[in-house]
């Protein structure tokens, strides 16, 4: 807002108390009538089709309509001066003296909302410029941590601290990828998807990164399968396995085993990630944006939504199968490019 707060027309926007001390509360009569009287309803509906301004309601009150954040709002239940000068209005002014207010004061309230809307748009524009840059700088810092740790590990391969740092930086990168993709789904969809991805190698890498986290919950990750090769985005597709494995650890039962399996059949590569969980999950709704099934655990409900978006982009499908014993299996199917000749099994 470009004016100092002392100049704002309101000093309590919640109760619409104006800076000059006057108030514009909706009276109890209006509050009841809005829900029960059809003439009230049609009055407010008619305001959506008319230009912003002052109108008289069927009972004689003044209504001031205005647009805010794409919706039409009305300040009503007041008797504003200059008046419409009708008999009903005079009667209301006598019955509800607290509602008498100047039209200029109501206009000041409207201006306040206009300024608020402008301030919001300015802030969004500013953050759209600044935040991606800040995010990018963070990623570069993380890259330096990861790559220097990797370099040092070559000369000192048994340094446990360096390995922890490297894993933490990889986890951080995964989180950055997910956050970035959620905030820019269109950008994720625009990524080239013609790189060769070995699901076997990818699963092994993700397993390696998340093993530390699984150990913290005394869980084990068993990964096995064939060397299925798919075509896809090397930036986007790893997120699918990351999300599924991270969820399996986060919402899985402590001391249990997570099983990740890759198979190939009928020109399809199939990834199955199974875990035991105490949380009930609705297999039909779990891929919707913002849907969560474990409110006590930290999370935003974006992971599975994003996994589905990425799988969709790769012309694949993702589904969730649940068993009464709490066994949850996420099944991802994507078009298979080929199976590498040397069939190997992960430890």
């Amino acid at each position, binding site marked *: 807002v470009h004016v100092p707060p002392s100049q704002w027309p309101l000093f309590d926007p919640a109760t619409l108390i104006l800076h000059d001390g006057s108030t514009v509360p909706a009276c109890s009569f209006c509050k009841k009538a809005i829900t029960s009287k059809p003439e009230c309803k049609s009055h407010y509906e008619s305001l959506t089709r008319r230009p912003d301004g002052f109108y008289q309601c069927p009972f004689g009150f003044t209504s001031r309509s205005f647009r805010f954040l794409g919706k039409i709002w009305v300040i009503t239940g007041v008797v504003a001066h200059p008046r419409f000068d009708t008999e009903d209005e005079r009667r209301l002014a006598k019955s509800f003296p607290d509602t008498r207010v100047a039209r200029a004061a109501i206009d000041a309230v409207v201006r306040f909302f206009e300024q608020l809307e402008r301030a919001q748009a300015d802030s969004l524009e500013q953050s759209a410029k600044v935040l*991606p840059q800040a*995010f*990018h700088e963070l*990623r*570069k810092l*993380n*890259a*330096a941590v*990861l*790559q*220097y740790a*990797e*370099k040092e590990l070559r000369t000192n391969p048994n340094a446990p601290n360096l390995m922890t740092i*490297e894993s933490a*930086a*990889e986890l951080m*990168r995964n989180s*950055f*990828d997910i956050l*970035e993709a959620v*905030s*820019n789904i*269109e*950008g994720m969809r*625009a*990524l*080239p998807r*013609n*790189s*060769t991805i070995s699901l076997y190698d990818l699963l092994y890498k993700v397993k390696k990164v998340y093993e530390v986290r699984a150990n913290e919950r005394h869980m084990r990750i068993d990964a096995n399968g064939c060397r299925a090769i798919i075509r896809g*985005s*090397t*930036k986007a597709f790893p997120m699918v396995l990351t999300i599924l494995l991270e969820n399996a650890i986060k919402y899985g039962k402590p001391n249990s085993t997570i099983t990740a399996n890759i198979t190939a059949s009928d020109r399809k590569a199939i990834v199955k990630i199974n875990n035991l969980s105490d949380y009930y999950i609705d297999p039909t709704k779990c891929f919707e944006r913002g849907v969560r099934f474990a409110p006590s655990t930290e999370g935003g409900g974006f992971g599975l939504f994003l996994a589905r978006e990425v799988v969709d982009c790769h012309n694949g499908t993702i589904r969730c199968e649940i068993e009464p014993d709490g066994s949850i299996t996420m099944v991802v199917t994507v078009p298979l490019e080929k199976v590498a000749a040397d069939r190997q099994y992960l430890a």
Partner: protein
Amino acid sequence: MSIWDRLFGKPTLASQGGDLSRDRLVQSGRIAFIDDEKPLLIEELKQSGFSVDHDTTGDNLQNYDNQIYDVAIVDYAGVGRRLGSGQGLEIVKHIRRVSPRTRIIAYTSRSLTSSESDFFRLSHTVLQKDLGLGDSLALIEGELQKALSKEYLFDALITKLKITSGEERQRMQEALVKALAKRDESQFRRYLKEAAGVAAEKGVDILLSKLFVSTK
């Protein structure tokens, strides 16, 4: 179809070589790294023996126009200012236009807006700046391998010569396969001159020298 073809299958471009050995890849591959900063990856590539030119601005287009690079790794921000406001995207567009054989790697961790996302669309793959060195190297080697594959180089030649007819393409491919089988570059050069009317041209010369490189 000859008896040989019936017995062993018709020779194809893919059957004329396969993947280059790592030594050959290091020896043959030439990489442009366009980034206003100096990422650790450049040093890593050089230490691995690759020929890397670090271009901090993307302003001097001569090397791209001469089509000398197999792979161009292009950052988004801070480069290509001379070409316009699109930064790295302008460089990607330029390289695609003048050097169809160059595989382009979008090198950024930046989240791009929908108007900027052509940077990704026009690139062959994306390399995140915060990927590990080993993984980054593997990705770049994979792109080099593709850039030097016979099929890809042939496609680049077709684009370079602006051949649109399917029949003409087929005839040229067969002539190339025969010449490759005999390792006779001059035979294919003669074909290009006689059948397609292609005289000596630097861009075509580079493609031919890459096509006839030994895989071992």
